[in-house]
């Protein structure tokens, strides 16, 4: 068996006459952090919905550890742009929620949740309800809830789209910390090229519809990354030119 955690093979999707995704192929190694960028309207959401199995592909498929992906068997976690905490549960109960559904032993749940609360510095919010939190803190809860599952694949769809720049970098640093601490495999979708280069070990650049992979780029810059360094700016300008439509 290869050391690929995720294999995407010939992924294709049609909605009637509309050809959205065209023969997408790529692999993700265990523990890798990948960012996906592409022009507006290129089918990123369809792509994500196929990975989460909300839609089924017209052709091709997604494999996890060499097996056909199955949400009942594999652990797929998502974070969307809009926070989606369960409103009648406290922060701590939200963090435990997924683990309880998966019938993980209580002791294990407690230790994993404790670990995430400590990593993220959420102690003071432990007993708060989502409506008592700011939007950004609620989003942090959702991100913690995704990482606590030790997912086979964590999918993030532009979770920081509306945040101001200072807050965005703070949250991006936090996500890197969680990723390193948990060894999760992450696919992060964004319109923001600076964000993609700040986070990713590798980025996939998508084309316009029918969408396919235009280019894969390995990002070898040391962390924490300096967004003003000439290497960073060079790659940022290059990727921008690959997808520019505005």
């Amino acid at each position, binding site marked *: 068996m290869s050391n690929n955690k995720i294999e995407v093979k010939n992924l294709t999707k049609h909605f009637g006459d509309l050809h959205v995704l065209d023969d997408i192929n790529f692999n993700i190694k265990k523990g890798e952090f990948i960012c996906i960028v592409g022009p507006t309207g290129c089918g990123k959401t369809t792509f994500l919905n196929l990975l989460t199995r909300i839609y089924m592909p017209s052709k091709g498929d997604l494999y996890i550890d060499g097996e056909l992906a199955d949400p009942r068997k594999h652990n797929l976690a998502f974070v969307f742009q809009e926070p989606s905490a369960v409103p009648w549960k406290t922060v701590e109960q939200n963090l435990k929620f997924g683990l309880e559904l998966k019938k993980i032993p209580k002791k294990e749940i407690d230790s994993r949740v404790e670990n995430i609360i400590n990593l993220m510095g959420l102690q003071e919010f432990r007993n708060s309800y989502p409506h008592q939190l700011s*939007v950004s803190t609620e989003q942090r809860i959702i991100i913690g809830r995704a990482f606590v599952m030790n997912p086979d694949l964590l999918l993030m769809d532009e979770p920081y789209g509306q*945040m*101001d720049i*200072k807050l965005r970098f*703070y949250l991006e640093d936090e996500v890197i910390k969680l990723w390193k601490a948990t060894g999760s495999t992450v696919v992060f979708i964004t319109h923001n090229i600076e964000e993609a280069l700040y986070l990713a070990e590798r980025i996939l650049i998508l084309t316009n519809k029918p969408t396919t992979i235009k280019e894969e780029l390995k990002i070898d810059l040391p962390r924490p990354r300096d967004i003003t360094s000439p290497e960073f700016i060079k790659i940022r300008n290059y990727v921008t030119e690959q997808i520019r439509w*505005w």
Partner: protein
Amino acid sequence: MDNNKIKLKLENISQSYITKDNVFTAVSGVSLEVYDREFLVILGPGRCGKSVLLNMIAGIEKPVDGSIFLDGEKINGSDERIGMVFQKLALMPWKTVIENIEFGLKLKGMNKKTRRETTQKYIELVGLEGFEKSYPNQLSGGMKQRVGIARAYTNSPEILLMDEPFGQLDAQTRYAMQDEVLRVWDAEKRTVIFVTNNLEEALYLADRIILLSKCPAHVKESYDINLPRPRNTTDSDFLHLRKLISDNTDLAL
């Protein structure tokens, strides 16, 4: 900018609300001057009271303290010389693009022919020709925002307030709309006050940036932005200023 002629002046503006068991202060003692034909950006972290400040200038809410002067005269409540583009669009879904845009002129009782001529001019200016008879739900996010901008300009305001107009657009559509807004501003020569939480956007657009603190908002700093236009977001001067302002911005978790 017209030789620093002061168009709008805020003097010690504050706003507070009574909550269940407390008084919540959103804006605290803001004083600032806006020059004629200036592109002023008000920048601040999320939920810091930026929209509240703009709503007070628009006369949508009354400050608990302080005064607002337009061309040297104190104003109370809304004034037809001040127009607004809203964050959440506020388009009427049952009206077409052209009906949405001409709505203000219709209320003023302008006859249909003049009204349509004025409206058409702004439809063309924002690039919506061919979509006059479309309904808002048939348009993309960027196009809906263009309707809001055309509607505001059609009423010929001397000051245009824009409250995070691109907050819900993706990063790339934002770039396109920023160029659009600068082009229209350049063509129309009106004063613009633009609110955003996005520092890159602020630096791309502004003649001057007023940086607000976290809640309750007060003015932290004013920056004159002398970079030539069109600006390049990865230019070293641009990134240097971005770092400078970012380091001075409060983190609002």
